[in-house]
């Protein structure tokens, strides 16, 4: 089977959707040149009416996408860096997200926001290393964080076809992942549907994005000693609680590894919901970024702040005690 990289998968998904639906268009900085690779080759294929290089006015072009969506288009926005989601939080959380309810259903806003290279890029420091997906889960904007090339393809396609705003985080740490892929089988992956990458009996490890690969490595490492189920929600919001109940119902133990800041992050939500509604045989554990984390520049500091395999192993061992 051919190998497909995560980056190419996103590029292919976007190209396929532009091809399929003339309402799809793309806004972003330097997307004509395709410097983030997401849009490579798309300007020459689809032209300036579909692939629009924007000035550095993220707030205006984010709401511009909303306006275009109100008129029947399905815009996709590329943000060069994750913290541009802070800059445009008003436009996404307070405008695009709220319009359907506030108008009593008169309009909807099918816009997709993609961040190729979310989380740490190693050495990009405090303002370029955020992973703010939990913020969108909190305000209730649909949010996906694919871990593999086929999920990247499928979730981007679903995001574009969705009638509501959707944020797609493509973690920098996953963008070099390659997979054997049957191109004919590539297709939409439903938003809100989890994926169990590896079945296990002893403990459920919830992991997202690039951390899925760390969780899989840890599961391998612990193989024989502890049987780890690697549960990838794929969507942060809506979350596939039903599937998680199935997994936790089997294992009775839970560890979440989450590249958010600790307080009020996805890890908190997963543990809270499980503890309210499901039954565990041992206290759960989170492995996250610290509270209030700002990623320091120096590599050893940058890494020290991110959740990692050793911490995950320790957490899994603790819940197994």
């Amino acid at each position, binding site marked *: 089977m051919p190998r497909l990289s995560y980056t190419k998968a996103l590029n292919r998904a976007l190209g396929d959707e532009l091809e399929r639906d003339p309402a799809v*268009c793309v806004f972003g900085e330097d997307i004509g040149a395709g410097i983030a690779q997401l849009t490579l080759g798309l300007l020459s294929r689809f032209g300036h*009416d579909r692939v629009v290089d*924007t*000035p550095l*006015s993220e*707030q*205006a*072009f*984010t*709401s*511009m*996408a*909303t*306006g*275009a*969506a*109100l*008129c*029947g*288009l399905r*815009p996709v926005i590329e943000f060069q860096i994750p913290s541009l989601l802070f800059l445009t939080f*008003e*436009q996404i959380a*307070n*405008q695009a997200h709220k*319009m*359907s*309810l*506030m*108008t*009593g*259903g*008169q*309009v*909807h*806003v*099918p816009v997709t926001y993609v961040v190729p290279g979310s989380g740490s890029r190693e050495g990009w420091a405090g303002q370029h290393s955020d992973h703010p997906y939990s913020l969108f889960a909190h305000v*209730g904007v*649909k949010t996906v964080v694919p871990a593999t090339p086929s999920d990247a393809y499928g979730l981007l396609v679903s995001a574009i076809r*969705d*009638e*509501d705003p959707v944020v797609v985080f493509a973690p920098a740490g996953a963008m070099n992942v390659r997979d054997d892929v049957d191109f004919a089988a590539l297709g939409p992956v439903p938003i*809100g549907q989890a994926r169990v990458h590896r079945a296990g009996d002893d403990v459920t490890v919830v992991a997202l994005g690039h951390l899925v690969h760390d969780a899989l490595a840890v599961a391998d490492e612990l193989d024989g000693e502890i049987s780890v189920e690697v549960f990838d929600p794929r969507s942060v919001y*809506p979350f596939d609680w039903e599937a998680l109940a199935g997994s936790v119902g089997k294992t009775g133990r839970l560890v979440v590894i989450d590249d958010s800041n600790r307080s009020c992050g996805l890890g908190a939500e997963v543990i809270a*919901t499980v503890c*309210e*509604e499901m039954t565990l045989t041992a206290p759960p554990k989170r492995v996250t970024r610290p509270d209030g984390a700002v990623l320091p520049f120096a590599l050893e500091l940058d890494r020290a702040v991110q959740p990692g395999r050793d911490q995950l192993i320790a957490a899994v061992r603790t819940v197994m005690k």
Partner: protein
Amino acid sequence: MTEGLHTPAGLYRRMRLIRGFEEMALRLVKSGDIVGGTHPYIGEEAVAVGVCAALADDDLITSTHRGHGHVLAKGSDPARMLAELAGRETGLNHGRGGSMHAADVSVGILGANAIVGAAAPIAVGAAWAARRSASGKVVATFFGDGGLNQGVLLEALNLAGLWQLPVLFICENNGYATTMPTRTGVAGTAVGRAEAFGIPASTVDGMDVEEVRDAAAVAAALARRGGGPSLIECMTYRFGPHHTMEHRIKLSYRTQEEIDEWRTRDPLDIQGRRISPDVRDQLDAEIGELLAEAERFALASPHPDPAGALDYLYASGLVPRGGVVA
């Protein structure tokens, strides 16, 4: 041209409708039928009506926190509009929007925005879509003098200027952003700002509906033939408070003389003088009846069912988890 706004009498009638509607709303705020208060448009009617008179029925607008005038000028049903303010299921937004968000997409209103300046880039996006589909539509976006200081609105001017999009930026300069006089908030001028982005701009008497209409007609024609955006600064005045809650605290940001002075230039009188007294009386009576009927309709309409509080949240039909999970 928006239906009903072809004649001097038609312009007068629509302004009278807005004036009467706003007075009724004030009364219903006092009686408690409208919760949360309103930002009255009284005094500024010529702006909304003048601009909408220059638009075609299928042209688009975006509205603001002080939006009742825009919504009625563009042709929404006053009864459903009032039902919206009263939070009824029959309201334009099924009671989900209220005073600051009441909008009627079916007549080309792409929402009313409670965040100052926020609608301008939405209008730019609609204009981009219109241009792309060669629909010939133009988009008018209303905002106050205070909105001139919002970064996103200035960014929107740049995009519209750069891409020559069919947008009419309508600045309702009523002299104040709440308590702040325009001159203490705006360095330079509205017109100068637009021109800095390559956008032709002019200032008009916002109390004269025909003057507003004529300027808007020029701008709309320019936009429609691909000539890009314009900005029109309409000098106007709100005769009443910033918001109906303003009286709760003693404010002295403007003088009674100033208010009286502007009241001598009531847009209804300016336009009223252009039609015969008989016609004027007849229109006033007509509007009176129409509004009485609107009030009956609105107040007799059912309140929404609390069980549907999150209806319309997701267009895809996603049902959010409740705040308590049993």
